[in-house]
């Protein structure tokens, strides 16, 4: 490890010792944060994985319904039927603070009727397909929420891990090495002073 470029004085030594203490405290705190984040992340990612599998299956089924429905109707009719939806969706977003990461929490609000078209030219399959979509929607929102949370946590965990590593493998060893270097230098100077005095004393006695 490289030692820092400082003057080997007692003043620097004291400063460095103080720095080491701070770095050690920071290191401990960050490691605790990392553990906390990791725990939360694992919890969320497991849930997210299961949820995604479920959602993808359901969505597949909904798409199939919709394909069948659209195959039974003229494309123009289908498009016209769905051109101006009266249904409205909106989300309420809250953010939670987990280990200083702000993660979003969505609440879905639905309004209006999805079956907003004339029944004359449209097929019954379309109604069913849209209902299937509507059923999937809350799950999709849940998936979005949980994946976004996982993403945010992953970013933060990575950042924290880097900081912990930087402290542990770079800053702390460097500081310690420098402290060692300075204290050696200082004791060397001390010894040199003593021998100097001894020699002068010996010279005077002769």
């Amino acid at each position: 490890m490289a030692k820092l470029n400082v003057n080997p004085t007692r003043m620097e030594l004291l400063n460095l010792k103080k720095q080491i203490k701070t770095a050690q405290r920071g290191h401990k705190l960050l490691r605790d944060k990392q553990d906390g984040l990791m725990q939360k992340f694992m919890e969320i990612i497991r849930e997210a994985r299961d949820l995604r599998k479920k959602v993808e299956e359901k969505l597949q089924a909904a798409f199939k319904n919709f394909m069948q429905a659209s195959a039974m109707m003229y494309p123009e009719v289908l498009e016209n039927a769905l051109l101006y939806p009266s249904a409205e969706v909106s989300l309420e977003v809250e953010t939670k603070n987990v280990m200083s990461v702000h993660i979003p929490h969505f609440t879905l609000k639905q309004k209006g009727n999805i079956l907003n078209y004339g029944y004359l030219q449209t097929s019954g399959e379309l109604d069913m397909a849209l209902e299937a979509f509507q059923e999937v929607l809350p799950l999709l929102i849940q998936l979005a929420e949980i994946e976004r949370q996982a993403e945010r946590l992953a970013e933060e965990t990575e950042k924290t891990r880097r900081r912990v590593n930087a402290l542990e493998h770079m800053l702390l060893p460097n500081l310690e090495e420098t402290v060692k270097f300075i204290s050696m230098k200082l004791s060397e100077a001390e010894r040199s002073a003593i021998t100097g005095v001894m020699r002068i004393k010996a010279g005077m006695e002769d």
Partner: protein
Amino acid sequence: MNIDSYKIAIVGSKDQILGFKALGITATIANNGEEARSALFKLNNEIIKLGEGETRKKYAIIFILEDLATQITKEDYKKLTKEALPAIIPIPGIQGTKGYGLTRMKKMVEQAVGSDIFG
């Protein structure tokens, strides 16, 4: 529109997103990666003024179909998800899942843990 209610959007090819449109989701048509990219940026830049110079995003969630999501570059994705919102979520299309969503999740695990522990 309510002050603290956000909207949902979806980006994909026309036949795949029509169904979502009926639910009241903002559907933006994109047929290739480039179109999807500009659609995402456009949706992301739509903001609502709250008064006193404060603004917030209009869309909280943007769903994007898997085949288009794979064509969005990492840099663009990073730019889009700098802030807490929106959440950009890939969903499988008519052809069924190609595993992109799960790959994405694997990457998250790798990023957080440092190695892939799900296998």
